């Protein structure tokens, strides 16, 4: 059952992105930014933890989860350290994604030659 829910949720979010891409003049860059901000807003409303507990990986693989990680770790930082915590905590959860992207992209860019 959890597999089906993960499939459906990720599928619906991606289909939504495709509908936006096809029917507006927005580019993929706009859509991903929009979904990230959307994830932060859902996290602000307290919905995103609910989504993750119900749809599992379906909710964590989409880019909206990036916005959720940013907001929730910034809020966590505020609860622990106050205003300074917003700044020190912002990237706590998303550090895995950002560091991973930087490290792997750099290594592969050095090793492989671009294909045209």
């Amino acid at each position: 059952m959890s597999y089906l829910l993960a499939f459906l949720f990720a599928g619906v979010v991606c289909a939504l992105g495709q509908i936006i891409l096809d029917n507006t003049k927005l580019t993929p860059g706009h859509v991903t930014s929009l979904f990230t901000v959307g994830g932060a807003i859902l996290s602000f409303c307290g919905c995103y933890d609910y989504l993750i507990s119900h749809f599992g990986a379906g909710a964590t693989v989409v880019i909206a989860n990036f916005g959720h990680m940013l907001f929730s770790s910034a809020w966590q930082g505020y609860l622990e350290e106050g205003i300074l915590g917003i700044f020190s905590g912002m990237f706590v959860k998303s550090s895995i994604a950002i560091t991973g992207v930087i490290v792997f992209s750099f290594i592969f860019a050095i090793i492989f030659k671009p294909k045209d």
Partner: protein
Amino acid sequence: MKKEDYKKLVKKVSPKEPKLRNVLVAFFTGGLIGLIGQIIITLLNVSFGLSKVEAGGWLALIIIFVSTLMTALGFFDKWVTTCKSGLIVPTTGFAHSVASAALDYRNDGLITGLGSNFFKLAGSVILYGVISSFILVIVKVIFCG
């Protein structure tokens, strides 16, 4: 030719995007990534005894590793052309945008090429994610303490 006639002609001649097919393809590819993610999380959770949070972290790393590797090998661009937002909306799209910028600009030098263009495409995601989160935290602090 009148302007409206011209518009009609352009609409007639320009190739039609098969919208319904695009949406279905995006639905199935995106869903497949979610399904694979769920399988990996269950596998790590049951077989390796990792907690849900740890398993989620490893899942993010695995997805990023695979999609940067596929970008570097040249497969990913073809897949994006077919699957469209099914690969753009998941984390794969974020990893792909960084990896393809890194590959494209590598020949311009390590600092002026690779370094300064690294976040050319993914920068907007990080920028607007941080700005919106910051504003929302401030709003939440003001209204909820």
